[in-house]
């Protein structure tokens, strides 16, 4: 199985909100769509899922145009949606029925997921008690019900738009465990998130969108490698300002109470500075040379003036 997005384009009037977006998923895993608010992530997702018509390009699933009426897709939208006044079981059964899941299978799956997500008490009430409606649930519990709705049909392709937003650390870990389980089950996932550590935890490939355009694309590890080990953390017992002033290849120096955060041109510059310090009997307490984080790459690519 494979997912291929080719030159997607969407315009609203004169404004191009998705501009020639292309990427491919050749094997199961998580693909990340990143970008600032209004970068075109949700619009791209809606086009991929066939909800919105594009102004150009195509979405291929196994080499054929992806038809959401045929392909089993699961979707957790950024802005969550449940019927506030209907009982939870009624709406979950309805969503499953729309995905052509039989009532019996749906009921079994609801029970399994409810147990896994710890929401049985809201779905199954005691005899005689009134079943709970969505508006009686907390935001986090509503999100769990929505995740259940997205996964009830055991979809091949899962699209999660900001799956962890608004969750407390415990529920966040619960969601992460479920995502890992889906990856292990060989599912294709597209994830959009503003939480960069989460993306780094799950995603092998990424696209960073800025004003509808892909400004950075590819395998996350390769992208990081291409930047090189250019972030240095340095902590010494003595004042090292004179050495820093004289050193070559330092792009920026930021002093913090804990350590110096130094951006270097390359590993050679970092090693040269370390050698100088050691030669001058400076006590080096901490020396760390690493690749840039996704957060740093993101900020560099889309600029710090955007709301992230």
């Amino acid at each position: 199985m494979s997912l291929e997005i080719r030159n997607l384009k969407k315009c609203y009037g004169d404004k191009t909100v998705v501009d020639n977006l292309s990427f491919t998923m050749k094997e199961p895993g998580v693909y990340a769509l990143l970008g600032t608010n209004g970068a075109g992530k949700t619009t791209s997702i809606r086009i991929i899922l066939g909800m919105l018509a594009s102004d150009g390009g195509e979405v291929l699933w196994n080499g054929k145009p992806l038809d959401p009426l045929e392909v089993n897709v699961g979707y957790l939208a950024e802005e969550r949606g449940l019927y506030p006044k209907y009982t939870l079981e009624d709406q979950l059964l309805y969503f499953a029925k729309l995905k052509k899941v039989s009532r019996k299978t749906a009921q079994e799956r609801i029970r399994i997921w409810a147990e896994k997500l710890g929401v049985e008490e809201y779905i199954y009430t005691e005899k005689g008690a009134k079943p709970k409606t969505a508006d009686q649930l907390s935001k986090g519990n509503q999100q769990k019900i929505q995740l259940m709705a997205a996964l009830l049909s055991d979809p091949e392709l899962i699209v999660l738009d900001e799956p962890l937003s608004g969750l407390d650390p415990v529920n966040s870990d619960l969601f992460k465990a479920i995502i890992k389980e889906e990856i292990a089950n060989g599912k294709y996932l597209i994830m959009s998130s503003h939480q960069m550590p989460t993306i780094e935890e799950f995603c092998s490939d990424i696209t960073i969108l800025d004003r509808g355009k892909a400004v950075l694309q590819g395998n996350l590890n390769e992208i990081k490698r291409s930047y090189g080990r250019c972030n240095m953390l340095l902590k010494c017992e003595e004042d090292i300002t004179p050495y820093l002033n004289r050193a070559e290849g330092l792009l920026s120096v930021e002093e913090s109470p804990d350590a110096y955060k130094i951006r270097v041109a390359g590993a050679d510059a970092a090693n040269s500075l370390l050698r100088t310090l050691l030669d001058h009997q400076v006590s080096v307490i901490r020396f760390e040379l690493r690749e840039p984080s996704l957060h740093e790459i993101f900020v560099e690519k889309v600029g710090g003036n955007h709301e992230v």
Partner: protein
Amino acid sequence: MRYKLDERLRGWREVYAFSALQSLKSKATKITTVIFCVIALFSLPVFTLIMDNDDAHAIDALDIKTIYYYDESGFSILDGMNTALEGGRLSGAEVIKLNSADYDRKILAMESAEYGEADILCHFLISNETGYTLRVAFPKSESVSELDANDAAAEIAAVFHDMIFITSGLPEDEISSLMEPIEYELITDYIPADGNDSTVDVGSDDMSEINVNRQGLTMAEYGVSYACILIVMIFVAIFGEMIATSVVTEKANRVTEYLLTSIRPLALIFGKVLAGLTVMLLQFATIAASLVCSVYIENAISGRDGLPPYLSQLFSEESIASFTPLRVILAVVVIIFGFLLYGTLAGLVGASVSRVEETTEGLKGFTFVLMIGCYLGLANTIYSMFDAGSLLFWLSMLLPISSPFVIPAYLLIGRVSTPIALGSLAVLMISFILLSIFVANVYEGMIFHNGSRLKLKDILQLSRKEAHHESK
């Protein structure tokens, strides 16, 4: 991706089943149904009790002992008034004829506050200008109440009217014909003097209906069609509000976004409208069943069989004869398509707003169209009392916004021919299909719109854009 019609409709059954079930479970549906049923169940018994009370009052003998009269009309038969009043509310009263001098004395005596007799004094007059006049005097002391005096005057005047015809020497059947109001009809086709047209089969159903159409509506027909139009309008308004609210709720709660990963917008709106229609028809049927029960309760109270007289009088023999199963089905189908048309329009209105609290504002356009349709139907009903084949008649019959109100009403009173009703239904069905295609095209774009309410101009722009997509 372009979809065929069956693909665009795939999943409508699931939407229909879920929406219908949830609507039936909702408190609002239960409460409105119960209220309407209670009204329907007790309407006829209560109405009968009120009417019987009035009738009982109407047949009470009037508390009048003597009727004095002075005759200047010249009708000697007034001497037999005593006999003519028998069987009526004045049958126990004595009738005494007075001459001019006695009349003057009597009327002066009745002016006295001490006059204690239950008498009235009638003065029959005739003039070239005003025709016959009956002047009735009753005692100032109110030994006869004004209400009784008024009822007595009405009864004596009616008897006097009959007696005028009796003096003409005409037989009774001719007199009863003379009593009927004179109706006229305008014709353009040749009809021989004997009433049988050798070229046109006047006995055929359609021709007789067309002849009927050229006559004005009677008061009873006007009342029935007016009530029918209003009832359908009320149900269409409730139905429209239900559909619009349902669409806005789904949109505002972001459920639509999830649903559109499984089905197309056309299936969503189609299933929703049909579900609303089912709920409405079930409510309609429940209320109709309550009305039937109401007839049985009324029969048990009044001791009569069948429809109470005040209802059966509303339907002419022609309308009852024209109430064939085909025309009943036709009326129901027209109502159903009317609901579908207005429901689809309400769905469009629902998709044009983003928040539930904006629904009322969004429904303004829907209400405007509904009012135009309904008022056109009512205007036609009023105008049809004078001219039943006018331009207004054709306009209200054929315009899809008014025909769902007018056609069922006119089928009920037998004032529209089957071919006209079928033609109107065809126009209605085509309009519904065209509107559904338009709504399905713009719904997708509208459903993801957030912010201020979309205006008609924006919706038309969306439609053009979708048409452009389709052509690519």
